[in-house]
């Protein structure tokens, strides 16, 4: 994970059949700053790199279209199980938008998509696994869904701080995850 990019952008959009007008991507992003040091050197220009919302949305839609089935309506589970949620990998070419080519792991929850931007030689299997742990916990921490979610970066930051600290992917077994959950549970706001 390129840490300062903060990795996870929660994106609100309908994952139903593509509407006639492409849905606007909101981007309250969590964790990490957007500023990034220019690779030209310490005195280089600091650039703000926009996260790849458009690409993630497009891959979500295409993946769903290729399955030929309409999206299943979300069940009122608590928390939603995302083990079989659609997800995948794609690549961003160098310069679009990051200077070096990067791979992106994405996961589609009902009405939301999550994306992890990975460093060039990241363990992509681990990245995908991390998304599957992170997404349901984020969804649970940010309940109820609604505009109020935009006002709770601290809830997301807390989770990210434990599961993706400074953008570092962690090799967490089920038991380690339970340990993290135990640490976090008294601190729910």
């Amino acid at each position, binding site marked *: 994970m390129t*840490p300062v990019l903060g990795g996870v952008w929660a994106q609100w959009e309908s994952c139903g059949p593509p509407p006639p007008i492409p849905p606007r991507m909101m981007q309250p992003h969590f964790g990490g700053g957007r500023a990034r040091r*220019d690779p030209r050197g310490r005195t280089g220009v600091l650039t*703000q790199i926009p996260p790849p919302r458009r690409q993630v949305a497009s891959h979500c839609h295409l993946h769903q279209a290729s399955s030929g089935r309409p999206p299943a309506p979300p069940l009122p589970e608590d928390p939603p199980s995302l083990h079989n949620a659609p997800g995948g990998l794609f690549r961003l070419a160098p310069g679009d938008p990051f200077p070096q080519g990067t791979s992106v792991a994405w996961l589609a929850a009902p009405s939301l998509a999550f994306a992890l931007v990975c460093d060039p030689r990241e363990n992509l299997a681990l990245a995908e696994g991390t998304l599957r742990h992170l997404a349901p916990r984020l969804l649970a921490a940010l309940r109820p869904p609604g505009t109020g979610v935009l006002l709770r*970066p601290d809830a997301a930051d807390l989770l990210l701080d434990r599961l993706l600290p*400074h953008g570092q992917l962690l090799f967490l*077994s089920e038991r380690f995850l339970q340990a993290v959950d135990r640490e976090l549970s008294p601190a729910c706001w």
Partner: protein
Amino acid sequence: MFSAAAESFLRQAREAQPEELQRFAARVAAQLQGPEPGPEAAACLQRLHLVVAASKYPRRLDGEIAGLLQKVLCSSKCPEQIQLLCAAILREMSPCNDLSLSCDNIQDTKLLSLVSSVLLAQGDKKAEVAAVGQRIVKVLEGRLPEGQSSRYLLPVLSNVISLSPEALTEEQTNVVSKKMADWLRYASIQQGVAQPSGGFFSNPRTRQPGPVTEVDGAIATDFFTVLSLGQYYTEDQWLNMQAFSMLRKWLLCYGGKGLNAPNSGNRSEMDESVMSMVSTTSTSSHLLPPKERLREKAFEYCQRLIEQSNRQALKKADGDLQKACLIEAVTIMDIICKQDSSYVYRAAAFLKVLHSRISGDATYARALLPIAQFFLNHGEMAAVDSDAIYKHLLTDIPAQLFHNASLAFEFVLFCKENSQLFAETSSVFRQSFPNLFKFLAWNSPPLISEFVDLLPFLLDAGTAIEIFHLLLDLPCLTAALDVQMRSTSASERASCDPAVKPATCLEAFRHPLYKSAFQYLLRIESAPEDPPERLIPLRQLLGSLASSPRVVQCADTVPVLLELFFSVVAEFADGPLINQLVVLLLQRSDQLYEIPAFKDDVHRVLSSQLVMLCKLHPALIVELSKELLEFSGTVSNIQNKEAVFTHVVWAIGEYMSVSYDKRCTVEQINRFFETLEAVLFEVTQVRPLASIPSYAPRAITVLMTALTKLAARSQDLIPRVSLFLSKMRTFLQSPAVTSVYCEEDREEILTRATELMNLLKMPSVAQFVFTPSVDAARSRFQKEVNDTLPSALRIVTRLLEPAPGFVPG
């Protein structure tokens, strides 16, 4: 709709005016300056964060509020929620000139991590990265106060070295390497204890924790790793997990000779000839320098993980983790071997055994990639015959697991990165391209850009023809893969009656009529000798799947790949290959999978590429005169493949000339003339009492122009063309035609006919314009003339029929 509400909320935040923001910030400041910021302060900070984060341009808060946020962040009495919010806002405002934050005096490791996140987001203008790095190492070296944990510090360190590997001195990296080796190898194998909850009823005598277990529940057999399970974890076990999580990055950065960026790991940057002269057995390992000792412990850790992956995990998440660990372990071994080649023999033997173990297990397929990478990098040195490994990888895996999107992605990336190496090491890579395309056929959207990079490596004079056919049949391949998948999962194997024609694609899969065609389409190896005509009936059969979304997505990728194909082929193709491609192009233009938009797009690409091929090898018009005569003489081609037809006729007019090929005889010109004349006649015939079919106006004008060009070269033909052209007016004015062609089109055809007629009235000019000498053809002047033919025609027309007021010269 939810997103509309959120959208408008965001817009409100985004549109908050600077004065509004300042007023609000002042309110927040007032809240924060109170004795203990509570839920109201938190709510204000949340709103402030949204405003700062939502705006597309950097929002500046005044120095006072920035200073207050920093103060609150660092204050020990502040609730964690407030601290998180302050840090989040400060990060959003990065880079912040008013930042006076420093990590120097912070003792609390969680706070240190949080403050570091703000400092590291500043863009390193004031050497913040180095400062953070120094501080973290200092804290790690020293003794932590009671209740503090080092585990919050390692991720910060990992972040530091990503941003700036030179932030740490060699001494510091040695300190950390030493600690990492201990954390990796010597973490406790007893489970941790639950923190006592205290209270009246709590039992002070806690049960002795047992040993950690493996993922299948057995008692741990060896040292602690990330695949060791416990109910509660000790501090050193957390550090073990985190040290492994950053191990790859650390080794890439500091494990080799000199400093390397953690994201490189390119072969060329590692010194492969480093031979460790120090014994690597564990008894004497404490004598090793820190770097070498870490390497040794890391290697042992990876071996242990690989052994642990042999167990059957009880939980699915642990099973997934095993696979991720396996991939990581093999990758780290590869890195270690690059940094110290004395490990190669041990690793190679070990990994060969691993390969045998997992090669039959589809759930471990992704791990085959780093294993293959290892042998590509070190196989030669280990004197291991890795061909069997590549063969299994390239022939079995794509055929069985093309539908696994993540595997497909990593597989194609792997091929891309190693295409050069593969081509040198083994012929199996080039031969298995039909298999590779299965990934693209099934998972088109994420893989098309990778295939654009990969295709040039697969293309050479030997594979070009087969790949051409394969590209045109790519959506067909998607449909066939779909049938194959359904066939393997079909519960009953219906008996196939060879006498009865199959009703569905699924039945056809095993039917003798279609079986071998399916096998050919789904082949795993290049088969250049096999005639692709056998796919014609199969293509028709699969027509029922032509509208399936996956097939359509695949079809969208074909035009892009075709254009790329031709641009690469143009670089190496010789005359015979170009001829072969043109013949196939003409043949295949009506042997395409029946998806309407697909056919139009392919025709468009083929026709423009035909022109490109003619430019490269103009003599093909003469060499392929038989095929071209047949193609251009078939009137139905004008409607079935208008783009291709038009361009063929244009090419005939342009290149059928002794200037391009001395073998072009008058007889040949005449033959072409007669063929095209017959077609034009057919197309412009007005049958009384019958409606005429509509042909594209462009086809008519290009036929007329081509005939004129040919006549200019064989001047006996001029009277015939002139006569024909003069009849065009009658044709265009007839009632049957006026109802079929719009006025604009008729105008256009008539104008062109007139211009051509006028040109033919001056045969020597016509000859000059239409028959350039070969050298002149290459000169810019002639190129301009040819490009501006229509305007040249218009000038000539005006010369012959001057409008009032037009002054020549």
